[in-house]
């Protein structure tokens, strides 16, 4: 099965990289950008056969490693 995990910064956590990208976009003349926050995606291939098992494995992966839950949220999406 294929799945996508998205990890984003919690609200209120500073994101210097996002800020810098914002500034860079502005100086490149890309109009209309108010704010940018950067996160990560993980495209995962799983050997498990059903959706609940995949979701459970990925939740486990997020809690154990993929996200730093002090500052990050995660979302798991099994694509099929």
């Amino acid at each position, binding site marked *: 099965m294929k799945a996508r995990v998205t990890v984003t910064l919690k609200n*209120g*956590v*500073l*994101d*210097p*990289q996002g800020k*810098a990208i914002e500034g860079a976009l502005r100086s490149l003349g890309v109009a209309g950008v108010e704010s940018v926050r950067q996160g990560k995606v993980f495209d995962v291939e799983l050997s498990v056969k059903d959706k609940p098992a995949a979701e459970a494995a990925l939740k486990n992966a997020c809690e*154990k*490693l*993929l996200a*730093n839950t*002090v*500052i990050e949220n995660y979302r798991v999406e099994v694509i099929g």
Partner: protein
Amino acid sequence: MKSAVVVFPGSNREGDVARAIELTSGRKSEMVWHADTSLPKGTDLVVLPGGFSYGDYLRCGAIAARAPIMDAVREHANKGGLVLGICNGFQILCESGLLPGVLARNAKLKFMCREVYLRIERSDTPWSRRYNAGAVIKVPVAHGEGNYLADAETIARLEGEGRVLFRYVSPEGKLDPAWNYNGATNAIAGIMSEKLNVLGLMPHPENHVDPAVGPTDGRGFFESIKAALEAA
């Protein structure tokens, strides 16, 4: 003084710190492999050295913080043993929950290797007894992600409990954004655990200990640790 330096795949300053310890204490350190599950018997000091453990892929220090050896490190810390994390080691300590907060990308988003000035906030710790409180030392940094961040509550607690040991300052010892190169909150360069026995810092005192190579402001740091262990 018996020190153990933990080597993760991708660590690269383990030799520098072991050399600094030997130069200042006369004692060799033992190198401990990340896949081991126990520390050498009688270890006083555990060092998590600088480098790019696991390439710093995912988040700096994240994968190393979950390595097999880390349970033993945690146990050592819980018993009050000294644990020192330098640079990547600091990142690993934060990722493992032994210290609060995170080290984000430098404000200017670039890796930076240069000398910085650090103010030593207190001298009554195992890490700083050979310095006077308020003293300013010059040591190098070499990192891309050393911008210390934590929520307001955590920062307030760290400050309130006197757990900030090092701050980036001007050569005169003043707080000044121009000298806080990575943009760290409150110019924090190093923090300690509640019992002061776990220290994480971004700068590399181990690279300023040898008069044959350069300045020696970092010697006092290692001499402090030695003195603390001898006194214990």
